[in-house]
């Protein structure tokens, strides 16, 4: 048994350096374009080639989701902030209005109006404090988008370029493999040329593939970090605000004890506007935050329901009562 003959890539590195001729470049471009065309027209790509990139594509999916939800979050924060401002303004107006009306009214209702007006003005000022952490949050999200996300995006683009080159080279290899005969020098020469091309393209692509996967992982982790920091600050401020205002409201509520209760009928119509908008944008904001940070952050975002309810029912009660008296004098007020 004799006649050993074997050719291996490591023996061939020197024999087949990359062909830098124009013809080769043209052929390479041709297959690259063909691949780009296949992708652009949505033609079915080689299922095995696609399957071999499954992990990468999953990471890309995650990246696009991060990209999309960060933009959504950024928009939601802006909207939320704006509505807090509007609400605060309206609340302040209502407070001032109640106070001025309260001065003119010498009954117990006048006293109630004055106290409520004061509380509302206080609450409107306190509410503005929420803007600080939100502003900060918005800045951070924007920085994250412009630095971290766009940096990853560049890598993703470079990777996609290399992927097209690699898949183009594979198409080329498949083409020259059709009638391959290792004993025919001419064919082998051509095959080696393409093989070198594929090896090179694969090397570049594999490197960038790893880069992308690592960067996306890092991106996800750093966003979690960012959210848990920023939302914690927001939460503290929000709790602080609730604590203060609910305290004030509770005090008034206490002082109204023994006063004649009233029943109201036209409350909802009057209160449409800033409060509802705020609720809506708050809901939007929370749902964004929720969709992103899931369990970690949600555990921190849980609201003290009791306090919120107390505060809001008081606000509704008092302001509704005043509205009816002053804006709609014909409304029926029935002491029960």
């Amino acid at each position, binding site marked *: *048994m004799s006649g050993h003959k074997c050719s291996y890539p490591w023996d061939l590195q020197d024999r087949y350096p990359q062909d830098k001729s124009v013809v080769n470049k043209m052929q390479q471009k041709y297959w690259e374009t063909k691949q780009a065309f296949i992708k652009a027209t949505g033609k079915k790509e080689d299922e*095995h080639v696609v*399957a*071999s990139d499954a992990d990468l594509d999953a990471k890309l999916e995650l990246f696009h989701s991060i990209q999309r939800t960060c933009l959504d979050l950024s928009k939601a924060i802006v909207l939320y902030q704006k509505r807090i401002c509007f609400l605060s303004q309206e609340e302040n107006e209502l407070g001032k209005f109640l106070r001025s009306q309260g001065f003119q009214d010498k009954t117990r209702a006048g006293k109630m109006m004055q106290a409520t007006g004061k509380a509302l003005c206080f609450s409107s000022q306190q509410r503005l404090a929420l803007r600080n952490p939100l502003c900060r949050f918005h800045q951070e999200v924007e920085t994250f988008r412009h630095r971290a996300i766009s940096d990853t995006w560049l890598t993703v683009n470079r990777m996609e370029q290399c992927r097209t080159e690699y898949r183009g080279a594979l198409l080329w*290899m498949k083409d020259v493999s059709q009638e391959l005969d290792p004993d025919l020098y001419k064919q082998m020469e051509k095959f080696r040329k393409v093989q070198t091309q594929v090896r090179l393209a694969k090397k570049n692509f594999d490197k960038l593939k790893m880069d992308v996967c690592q960067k996306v992982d890092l991106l996800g982790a750093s966003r979690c970090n960012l959210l848990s920091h920023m939302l914690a600050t927001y939460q503290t401020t929000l709790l602080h605000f609730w604590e203060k205002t609910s305290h004030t409201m509770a005090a008034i509520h206490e002082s109204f004890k023994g006063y004649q209760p009233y029943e109201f009928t036209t409350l909802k119509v009057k209160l449409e506007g800033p409060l509802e908008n705020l609720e809506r944008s708050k809901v939007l904001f929370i749902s964004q935050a929720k969709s992103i940070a899931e369990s970690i952050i949600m555990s921190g975002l849980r609201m003290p329901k009791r306090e919120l309810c107390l505060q809001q029912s008081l606000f509704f009660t008092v302001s509704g009562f005043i509205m009816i008296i002053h804006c709609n004098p014909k409304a029926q007020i029935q002491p029960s």
Partner: protein
Amino acid sequence: MTYAYLFKYIIIGDTGVGKSCLLLQFTDKRFQPVHDLTIGVEFGARMVNIDGKQIKLQIWDTAGQESFRSITRSYYRGAAGALLVYDITRRETFNHLTSWLEDARQHSSSNMVIMLIGNKSDLESRRDVKREEGEAFAREHGLIFMETSAKTACNVEEAFINTAKEIYRKIQQGLFDVHNEANGIKIGPQQSISTSVGPSASQRNSRDIGSNSGCC
């Protein structure tokens, strides 16, 4: 170098099972623990002697990575023998055998001789697939079976040569049309087509097939 016949072999199986190492061991009698991924296909050739006839084995060592799967399919055409390799220390490579076998049957002639190889038999301590399982799979699908080690060279010669013997036996029986190159067999240059070897000799050969040297 003159030869009576040329057999085309193809080595297939998952990535990292040791296809290239088997070939290197068979052609160069050396082992290289670390080596580059095969891109598309690599080639090896060696003369063997079966029944006093010089036979040239032209071996196509294919890439196992999934992205090359479609390319690899074009290499099956005209192969007389296939070495289907799995790694006895990684069960998933064994689990994928069915899909490889499907590919092989679909893209080659029905007479192709397939040898199932459980490689890395030197790593007994890390074994994940029992020898019996390999044997059972081979029996079920009508393959020849062997466990080899490209590192210690155990059974490597036998795997290649037994496949050649089986192909040779099929030629003797007239199952292969040697004039049809699609069967992966070429008659050597300046060789008269005298395939009238006594049937007794071929019978003896066929009995050798599958009986391992026992070193594994």
